[in-house]
């Protein structure tokens, strides 16, 4: 059965995934909006950077984040200067890493939704006296709702499933950075297969249910 350390890891994982998803929706929505509408030369490079975590091994991301957030890295220097200290081995360090790592899973569905909406409803909104920001919130966001739901589910699930990056910058500290995926790895490595099964099985069930919900939802939308 699950022991208190397992439960703490589950709680921490939920906290991490929720924080990351909320932040990603806040950061990713303007990025998605820009990507969906810009004709700038920068669209390609920015889109590619956002998509990088899809193709890069998490260890690459984790390694560079460790360097960047370390005392000699740009981010590390900034956080020390800002008085928040260094981010590796902290909860907020994991949040920052997860934001990068799960970014494409949030940005892309929203971007696709915005692209599908196109210019037309926004033009209609403008002729009905809606200023651009007003039109964004009252027309574009509600119309992109399926994209936001997909983004939320994928962002959350992908953060829960994150392992390589956390391993690289987490430090396996209880209640701070010891998330479920790392704990499973520990159990397996320590040959505690029984413990591992409880968590790993739970993870499989969770992921399955999340994807089932997602497909049920998108299936209903397209019907």
């Amino acid at each position: 059965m699950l022991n208190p350390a397992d439960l703490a890891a589950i709680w921490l994982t939920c906290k991490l995934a929720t924080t990351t998803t909320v932040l990603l929706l806040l950061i990713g929505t303007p990025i998605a909006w820009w990507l969906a509408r810009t004709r700038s030369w920068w669209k390609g490079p920015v889109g590619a950077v956002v998509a990088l975590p899809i193709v890069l091994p998490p260890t690459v991301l984790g390694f560079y984040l460790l360097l960047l957030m370390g005392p000699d890295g740009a981010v590390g220097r900034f956080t020390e200067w800002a008085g928040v200290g260094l981010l590796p081995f902290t909860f907020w360090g994991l949040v920052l890493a997860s934001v990068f790592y799960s970014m494409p899973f949030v940005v892309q569905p929203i971007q696709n939704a915005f692209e599908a909406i196109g210019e037309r409803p926004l033009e209609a909104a403008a002729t009905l006296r809606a200023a651009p920001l007003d039109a964004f919130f009252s027309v574009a966001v509600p119309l992109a709702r399926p994209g936001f739901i997909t983004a939320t589910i994928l962002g959350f699930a992908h953060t829960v499933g994150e392992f390589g990056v956390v391993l690289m910058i987490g430090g396996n500290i209880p209640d701070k950075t010891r998330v479920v995926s790392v704990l499973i790895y520990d159990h397996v490595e320590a040959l505690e297969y029984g413990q591992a099964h409880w968590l790993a099985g739970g993870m499989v069930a969770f992921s399955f249910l999340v994807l089932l919900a997602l497909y049920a939802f998108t299936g209903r939308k397209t019907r």
Partner: protein
Amino acid sequence: MRLTATALLCLVCCTSATHADEVQVAVAANFTAPAKQIAADFEKDTGHQAMLSFGATGKFYAQIRNGAPFEVLLAADDETPARLEKEGAAVAGTRFTYATGRLVLWSAKPGYVDDQGEVLKKGEFKHLAIANPRLASYGMAAMEALTTLKLLDAVQPRFVQAENIAQAYQFIATGNAELGFVALSQVFKDGKFVEGSAWVLPAKLHQPIRQDAVILDKGRGKPAAAAWLKYLRGDRAKAVITSFGYEL
């Protein structure tokens, strides 16, 4: 003289052509650098080729139990080879300690770690990197040493746990942890420290970190496997091993 050399070379070539063989070796991550050097010598001297895979001993154990094609295991501990032997997955009587690891408290910053380990008592650091004691023998040894020094309770809240000794090194080398416990072999080359500052822990502070080698079931009766273990005991290999800070 030249003729002799040519003849010798010819002989070596002929030998390798007729008897050259491969051996699949699973090597504990901390032994990566010496193993590569020994494998190069091994090929030159015997004509056999050692195909090396590096990784965590626990992972190798799981893989070996599930049919991985390794013929020899150079473990990071002495428990895993013993366990494999007991379970019939290794050839009985082939087990021996090829190296004894030394634990070192290390920092990437020069002058940070004093040669008495006083830095631990002062406790002016935020993060102390340690390999997960449940998974890595070096982590276990570090726990034992801290217990002996009666410092465990004081420093434990500042632990950052790495999954293995290589990752502990990474945490410290990038400066994210000010200091931590690593294997001497990681920071020591040709009789001196490569960089930073270090305190080699007295061996009496913890159980010796014995790293055992064993021939696995898949290597049973393979000449190249036996040759590799024999070579590992040889003087040339021993010189390499000690040059990396291991004891024998």
